[in-house]
């Protein structure tokens, strides 16, 4: 039986039936304001709540905000709202407002993401406000879009995530089985590439929430806590694999050949800016994005730094869309890039010799990838 129903105090339930549309709309606006406060709190800390409390006109919300400013945790918030005279003898509309405020501030104290907080708060208004809340969240998610350009990560978990991502359903299955909190804590220790691979499973609103939570936990959790979460995540993978729910390929199938990555990176770093810019501006974004999986981060930075924003964005979008490739495909994409650079150098009759030499090595890489 669901816990939330077995623990309910029946005569304290606030219900939207009988509350005017106008009042419910006003409560909805209040819910959005609290979600925005939660967002500011995450960005700038407790000082923002103090300012919000000082200017808040709604009695119930100000009461709760003041509790938070004084350091109240989730249990204190719930207790204070339940036993304060402020909660006595309320009409149906104010009772509904109280339920929304108490739920929201309790979620804020528990560190919930603003999107979850808004979903929790607006649930008291009934399903007809679900879409409205979704629109508000989608707009917030659209505006917050930000991207870390680091694409290569050391350590075990990123490799595991990349392996799982070869079959997106396997990665998603693992994420769901691990649960969101554990997954976020584990991924908080990884660079953006791993988070990007995972966050896309949740749609635009969920993706934004996952990315925000991972970044927030990264600043909040200790290295040991993240390490424990990563071990627990790896245990989930082992369990699912033992149960036959996942099938992981051999590890080296997914990791790039280090010597190849070094050589291709050396070639890119030594190439003159003009040639590099031309090849990446004129080349097929999809192929170039695939080749970038065989480059070190410094080469990513150099390439992206040379390109106009529009071209860099197109390339990053292609990187986002590209599947994680097995080693053979990374080699093949790198060889294609090498052929393009050498073709351009032959036409232009120029190019730094040490770079072209490296690109020739890449083009003729001994591993037999074309059979």
């Amino acid at each position: 039986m669901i816990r939330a129903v077995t623990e309910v105090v029946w005569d304290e339930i606030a219900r939207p039936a009988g509350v005017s549309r106008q009042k419910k709309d006003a409560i909805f606006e209040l819910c959005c304001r609290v979600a925005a406060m939660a967002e500011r709190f995450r960005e700038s800390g407790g000082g923002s709540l103090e300012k919000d409390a000082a200017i808040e006109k709604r009695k119930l919300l100000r009461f709760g905000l003041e509790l938070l400013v004084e350091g109240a945790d989730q249990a204190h918030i719930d207790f204070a709202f339940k036993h304060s005279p402020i909660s006595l003898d309320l009409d149906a509309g104010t009772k509904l407002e109280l339920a929304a405020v108490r739920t929201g501030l309790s979620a804020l104290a528990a560190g919930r993401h603003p999107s979850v907080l808004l979903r929790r708060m607006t649930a008291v208004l009934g399903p007809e406000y679900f879409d409205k809340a979704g629109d508000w969240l989608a707009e917030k998610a659209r505006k917050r879009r930000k991207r870390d350009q680091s694409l290569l990560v050391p350590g075990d978990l990123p490799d595991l995530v990349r392996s799982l991502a070869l079959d997106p359903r396997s990665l998603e299955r693992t994420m769901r089985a691990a649960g969101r909190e554990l997954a976020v804590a584990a991924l908080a220790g990884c660079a953006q590439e791993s988070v990007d691979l995972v966050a896309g499973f949740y749609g635009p609103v969920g993706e934004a929430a996952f990315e925000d939570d991972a970044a927030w936990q990264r600043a909040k959790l200790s290295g040991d806590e993240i390490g424990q979460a990563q071990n627990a995540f790896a245990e989930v993978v082992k369990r699912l694999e033992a149960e036959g729910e996942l099938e992981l390929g051999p590890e080296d199938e997914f990791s790039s050949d280090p010597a190849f990555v070094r050589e291709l990176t050396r070639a890119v770093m030594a190439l003159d800016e003009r040639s590099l810019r031309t090849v990446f501006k004129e080349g097929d974004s999809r192929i170039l994005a695939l080749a970038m999986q065989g480059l070190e981060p410094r080469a990513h930075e150099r390439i992206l730094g040379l390109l106009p924003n529009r071209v860099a964005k197109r390339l990053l979008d292609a990187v986002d869309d590209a599947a994680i490739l097995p080693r053979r495909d990374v080699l093949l994409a790198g060889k294609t890039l090498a052929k393009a650079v050498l073709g351009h150098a032959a036409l232009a009759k120029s190019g730094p010799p040490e770079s072209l030499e490296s690109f020739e090595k890449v083009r003729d890489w001994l591993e037999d990838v074309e059979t």
Partner: protein
Amino acid sequence: MINWNAELAKRLACGEDERRGLGPLIRRFIDLARKARKEGYLALEAEAAQTEDPLLKVGLRLVAEGVSGDDLEDILATYLLANDEKGWPFLRACATVEGLVSVAAGDENAIMIRKLVAYYGADRALALLQELEGASA
């Protein structure tokens, strides 16, 4: 631990014929879980668009959005309790919430079925369990 209480027991009470509706509901959740595993959880949004049940509709969309665990349970319970239902509609809503939380957690069919047949009552749960496990194998 379940904090059983008289009010909850009273609300869950309904006729045997009504309770038979749990079988199709559980089968629906097995199908939804299978679809999510096969096509990804975002595919549940298309299922949400086709359902008339408001609780199942919002629940599927929340699951697709990545809400799970206590958050999902609390949100869905708030919707459920706000309706002030009794009898079969209340029982069905409770099973719907349980099913959605189970889908979100990626439970295997066997686990999900065991969680949901419990709503059928101890006397009939075993028969329904055998029937459903045979069908989902």
